[in-house]
């Protein structure tokens, strides 16, 4: 029993040590994500003046970038709150919040960009943000996300499972006749 306890403590110590080593790397990687978001935000006025993005595109993409900054701030606060003693799994939870929030249907709806030229530019920034986010996630084996689609109808339709879950939550089950 004592041997098992010692082993368990050793394993937990190793995990704590891994988290301790990874936290500054995650902080730095999330900082780079923020730099990309800021670069894109700073580029918006120029893109509008030069006609690459329409006013509506600027509003939509600007909303996506602003939401990205908000999510990032939450993730950074989460990671900083853990400190250098944060475990890898706790760090992963912080990063996952950002990554999954970034590709949520609500956020993807902001990527409804009409003009093909604008789509290309917005896709560039969105891809860079996701690459940087995945880099941060890779450090602590958090969830990797796919680059969301930029286009006229970027928001994916709900899956059959999602519709089923929604019906269950609302109590709209065929078993009850509705």
């Amino acid at each position, binding site marked *: 029993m004592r041997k098992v306890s010692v082993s368990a403590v050793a394993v937990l110590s190793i995990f704590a040590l891994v988290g301790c080593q990874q936290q500054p790397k995650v902080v730095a990687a999330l900082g*780079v994500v923020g730099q*990309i978001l800021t670069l894109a935000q700073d580029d918006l006025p120029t893109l509008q003046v030069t006609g690459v993005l329409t006013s509506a595109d600027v509003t939509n993409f600007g909303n996506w970038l602003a939401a990205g900054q908000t999510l990032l701030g939450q993730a950074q606060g989460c990671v900083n709150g853990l400190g250098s003693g944060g475990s890898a799994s706790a760090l992963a939870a912080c990063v996952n919040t950002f990554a999954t929030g970034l590709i949520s249907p609500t956020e993807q709806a902001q990527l409804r960009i009409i003009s093909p030229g604008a789509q*290309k530019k917005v*896709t*560039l920034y969105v891809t860079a943000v996701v*690459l*940087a986010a995945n*880099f941060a996630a*890779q450090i602590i084996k958090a969830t990797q996300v796919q680059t969301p689609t930029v286009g006229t109808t970027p928001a994916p339709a709900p899956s059959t499972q999602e519709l089923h879950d929604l019906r269950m939550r609302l109590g709209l089950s065929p078993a009850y006749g509705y």
Partner: protein
Amino acid sequence: MTTPKVPATPAAPSTTAGKLESVLTTAVQVAGILAPEAGPALEVFGLLEPEIQAGIAALIHRFHNKQPTAQDFLALAAKQTGA
């Protein structure tokens, strides 16, 4: 299973095959595009689009053991999207 191809990369002339494999393996892991456990890194790397291979290789060549910057990710994104 096809024989994995070692992609053409902007490696220095003095780079040996062993070093190249090591660099590419690290590249796949560092770039965070594929998890290390996805398979033998070099084999998986050979299945990626050439532009992505080049982007990752360029990234790791320039920033081996360094934190990639925002400009690095934008450059990699440009290679991926053709922007």
